[in-house]
């Protein structure tokens, strides 16, 4: 009985334990594995990332030079980033903002587009 009373009183005067999330965002940690980004300038569409990905979320179309990532399958393990021979894949430290629909990120090389 009344074991939590000091804790309750303390919580009344201290500041909130939670953040007002969309307005106040915590800084992410230095080594955080966040959003996956592909630098299309460096990418040579070799398809190693697609082969290495454990959750099979990346698809690479070598012929048309299209790199696709199914965002909702990706678990940010960073295997593809380590495997990338051209170092075109990187991970930001921040997370991607929530989405309303299951989106697929698609990146196409510009030269292939023009040709």
């Amino acid at each position, binding site marked *: *009985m009344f*074991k*939590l009373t000091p*804790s*309750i009183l303390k919580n009344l005067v201290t500041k909130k*334990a939670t953040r007002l999330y969309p307005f106040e965002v915590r800084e992410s*940690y*230095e*080594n*955080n*594995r966040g959003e996956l980004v592909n630098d299309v300038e460096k990418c040579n569409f070799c398809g190693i990332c697609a082969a*290495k990905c*454990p*959750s099979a979320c990346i698809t690479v179309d070598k012929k048309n030079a299209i790199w696709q990532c199914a965002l909702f399958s990706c*678990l*940010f*393990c*960073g*295997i593809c980033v*380590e495997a990338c021979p051209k170092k075109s894949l990187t991970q930001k430290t921040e997370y991607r903002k929530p989405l309303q629909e299951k989106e697929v990120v698609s990146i196409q090389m510009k030269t292939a587009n023009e040709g």
Partner: protein
Amino acid sequence: MRQTIIPFGPQHPVLTEPIHLTLTVEDEVITGAIPALGFVHRGLEKLVEIKDFHQMVQVVERVCGICSMLHAMCFAQGIEELMEVEVPLRAKYLRVIWSELHRMHSHLLWLGLFADSFGFESLFMQFWRIREKIMNINEATTGNRVIVSVNIIGGLRRDLTPEQVRWMLSELTDVGKMIRSLESTLFDDYTVKKRTRGKGVMSAEKAIEMGTVGPALRGSGVPQDMRTLGYAAFKDLDFAPVTEPDGDCWSRCRVRFRETLQSIDLIRQAAGRLPKGDINIKVKGRPEGEVISRVEQPRGEVFYYIKASGDKYLDRVRIRTPTFANFPALLTLLPGMYLSDVPVIVMSIDPCISCTER
């Protein structure tokens, strides 16, 4: 007396995951319980056919979110044993640190949910606030909060810097204080005792007969803990299994509470003895043969049977998760109990249905 059949689950306020129990009730006393599983069966064992054994380390992490690191560690240890790879000592110590962090956040999650199962919601929030600190440590050191993906065959992918170790230990000191401040609330409270003492009693003989593992077994006074096998660096650490004699829900709760504090101690020991050196070694070749790998997860012993035939793809990976072993015992605990105690008893074995069904 006339029997009534009451469905429990798959959607129920205390259940974090879908499971269905068909309870046969006479008045308010349960006479029988029949489970129905399969709501989250994903067939992860089938993936050995299309994922090579390096990728499988990340696939088995997906079996369960809460104990992801331990699944990967268990699998990696199995393959390392098959390929006769000796992991660097630093990697072994780091595996201990991360696996104990996982045990802590799983136990704190469970302590919160258990408090919630008998309606003590403020305690639930207190425990989850503490858990957030552990999640932050996970995020800062491994890069991910839940599925940490640090294990590979032959070692680890991430290292800890001395600053991180110091910061982690100071955070853990806070965590230890916060957990101890809740001890009297959880164990001296009249209502908590009323709801948990003498409910779902399992004797040591019955626990062994039903093949239970983990805190459910240690809560009945049997000191069985796979960490005494000395995998990773546990053989160098000072460690004794936590046991409680009573075998009821209160006992199982106490085991988990004490293990949380024990984990802080183990992390401190491992961090103090952390040797210098590499964190992984290159692994060449392909595994061949059969191996069994056992690791103590927060919920109990996980059992991996791996069969390989020298191919890139393994023949079979069989995962026996702790809840799969504790589940038959749960069904025998229910008859004779009141319907209102079912949530507490079901929660007391810490059911992880994603683990059970894979």
